[in-house]
């Protein structure tokens, strides 16, 4: 790959953006370049990254999922409720995690039925199911805040891989989650690049009719995608509950903006067919870095959401401009061919 092509890649642009942003904030406040701040950014990125990996898969396939935050909190909250109701082992971390993933896959299955089974456009289908899931959760599972979550989950929130006191006297902590999240990230990358299922996801985003003619089952691929996203969201949901040390059914709703913005900024094409795990990781880090540190620049926290919205629009605009240039280049090439 030549240098100019490398420059044109979204990931490169994003790395530069991250560097510039760091330098600007770092020059204003020296705290920025500390391990404590870095680990804080990581900690706030875990849940988002898990959501984002799911959303990345959906976006590559040419669809969109806006139900994932609700699926996440539904799974996380319900897992806690089940633990309490059936007096399951308080100490266990595995039981709630598995419960949440299973619930996530089941909810993703409903999305799959709506999308692959009935052929409902993905945005409308997931918008609808998000409303249904939320309503079901609040009316049948519970609408109250649970502050004493099972001990296993509670302890996990402080399970640190590295923990020491810095020279300045602040506590520096790197959460153990960095390992499983890294493994899952690599696994999703492997899934997308090295398996036929992963390539089918890209194929689907490239064109439905052409994919069908390749002999790939559209419905089966879509069903797998939405169930996988459900599972990832369920996992993200229970981890969120654990890190927050409380389970509130009203949480996470509205967080889709941050996640979708991160994925799109990371170079996934909203039209489908393009996107990388590396780009998504960078996108998530960038968004969290910005959200955590805008305060250091003197920007009030109420502007954070607007800032993320602006980033989303910028990300899509860059894509649109690139798309225009590309089609212009193609047309030019085609015209020259004809002469």
């Amino acid at each position, binding site marked *: 790959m030549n240098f100019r092509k490398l420059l044109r890649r979204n990931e490169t642009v994003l790395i530069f953006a991250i560097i510039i942003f760091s330098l600007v904030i770092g020059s204003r406040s020296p705290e920025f370049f500390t391990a404590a701040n870095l680990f804080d950014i990581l900690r706030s990125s875990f849940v988002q990254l898990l959501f984002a990996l799911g959303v990345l898969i959906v976006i590559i396939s040419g669809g969109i999922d806006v139900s994932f935050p609700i699926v996440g909190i539904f799974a996380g909250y319900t897992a806690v409720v089940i633990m309490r109701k059936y007096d399951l082992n308080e100490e266990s971390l595995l039981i709630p995690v598995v419960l949440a993933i299973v619930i996530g896959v089941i909810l993703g299955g409903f999305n799959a039925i709506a999308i692959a089974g009935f052929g409902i456009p993905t945005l409308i289908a997931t918008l609808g199911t998000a409303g249904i899931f939320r309503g079901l959760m609040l009316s049948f599972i519970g609408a109250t805040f649970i502050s004493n979550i099972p001990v296993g989950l509670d302890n996990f929130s402080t399970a640190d891989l590295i923990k020491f006191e810095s020279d300045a006297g602040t506590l520096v902590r790197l959460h153990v989650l960095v390992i499983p999240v890294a493994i899952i990230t690599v696994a999703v990358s492997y899934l997308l690049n*090295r*398996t*036929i*299922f*992963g*390539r089918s996801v*890209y*194929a689907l*985003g*490239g*064109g439905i*009719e*052409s*994919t069908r*003619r*390749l*002999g*790939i089952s559209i419905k089966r691929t879509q069903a797998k995608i939405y169930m996988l996203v459900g599972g990832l969201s369920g996992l993200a949901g229970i981890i969120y509950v654990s890190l927050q040390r409380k389970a509130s059914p009203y949480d996470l709703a509205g967080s889709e903006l941050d996640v979708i913005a991160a994925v799109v900024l990371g170079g996934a094409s909203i039209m489908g*067919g*393009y996107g990388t795990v590396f780009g998504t990781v960078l996108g998530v880090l960038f968004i969290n870095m910005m959200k955590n540190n805008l305060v250091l620049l003197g920007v009030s926290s109420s502007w954070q959401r607007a800032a993320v919205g602006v980033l989303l629009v910028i990300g899509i605009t860059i894509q649109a401009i690139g798309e225009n240039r*590309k089609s212009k280049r*193609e047309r030019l*090439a*085609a015209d020259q*061919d*004809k*002469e």
Partner: protein
Amino acid sequence: MISTTTLSYSVENIVKSFGGAKALSGVSMSVSSGEVHCLAGENGSGKSTLIKIMAGVHSPDSGLIRLADKEFPQLSPRQAVQEGVQVIFQDFSLLPNLTAAENIALPTYIYENSKFISKRATLKIAQEAIDLIGVDIDITLPVSEISIASKQLVAIARATNLGVKMLFMDEPTTALTRKEINRLFEVINQIKARGVATVFVSHKIDEIQEICNTITVLRNGEVVADGLMKNFGPKEISQAMTGQDVLTTFISPPLISASQNVIELSCITAKPAFSDISFSIAPGEILGVTGLLGSGRTELAEAIFGKYQIESGEIKVDGVKMPLNSPKAALKAGIGYVPPDRLTQGLFLDQSILRNLVAVGLDSYKSRWGALPQKNLSQAGDKWISELKIKTKNSANPVTSLSGGNQQRVVLAKWFATNPHLMILNGPTVGVDVGSKREILEIIRDRANAGMAFLLISDDIPELIQICHRVITIKNGRISKEFSESELNETQLYKELN
């Protein structure tokens, strides 16, 4: 894998109808290995239906598919691939976001039921496939970044990779230049030498004659002619396709005498495209304009319509001076302009005949309140159906229920719906098969007979001779010569152009 014995692939008595309309009524065709067979026919003759049956997309109502020594009442897509039947559709069905290598190799993985994919194996499969057809393309590039000709070679490499025995190519030369067509033909000859039975679907007579050994001609879902290519000349083929003798008839209508010209151009100049162009067109007259690519003919057409900046000169429409450089003014003065390709790709296939007819001039059917009363629409629709003699019982039927020729009439009616005094047609028959071409020319003639003036810009010399009252040739942006109807002949025109 050169086979020594000749195998035969055939269909027998295939019947297929779609909701009452018969697409194929008892079609039989046979292709031997190592042969290039031409499947010719106009749009709507049943070619695509037959191809889709062979690809396993449609199943026939009755009939038999015989592949070597096996017989099938119908094929599933998977069966088709397993038996070595491959179709290269007109759009190639490639995935633009994946590399050429992946596009070639993916079907192999899927066919072998693999779960995993490796970059090295992908490149190896693809390189072998590319080498097999003896071409050189960079297979590491995404398909969106390679030329149309290369895309086609990728599609061929993909098809031939899976042990192809019978290969269908649906209008493979449509988007190619002559040089690329030559390369394609080399590839086809390679495939042929390996014993593949190739079916070449096309309506371009010169290409058919160049590459094919045998031919089957379809018309209205029936085989109307078949046999060895050498027994068919261009005339026989076009006659079989259309059922008419189309190549030689002169069909320009008698000229109506009128005192007032529809349009008068004096000394129109728009450098560097053209300068000092003057001519006039009378009501009911068809004026042809021809010239080489880059001679300024397209710019001239667009300039009259106000889309290309004119520097000096004057245009009078019906004796009234028209403001220059404004498409709005041109439309108001009664000038219509149809750019190239529009006559071939102008139908909303899943909409009704009526809706297709009124699609262009929607504004003119508006009521005072901006609504679109059904009454206005159906009135206009009925008018065009009777004026253009479109054969249908009900204008609410889908436009696909019409035959190819009648569909062509609907396309044209759409553009006539605004009732221009002067219609500028730029390349109206580019890429149209012989039968539809005749339909287009006949409709132009009918409208001219009714008093509409035409400016016809075309490369197609025989067509200009067939229909025009006068032809002017443009060279380097200037009118080089004007031919009156009696002076029109092919050799003179070609000589003037080159």
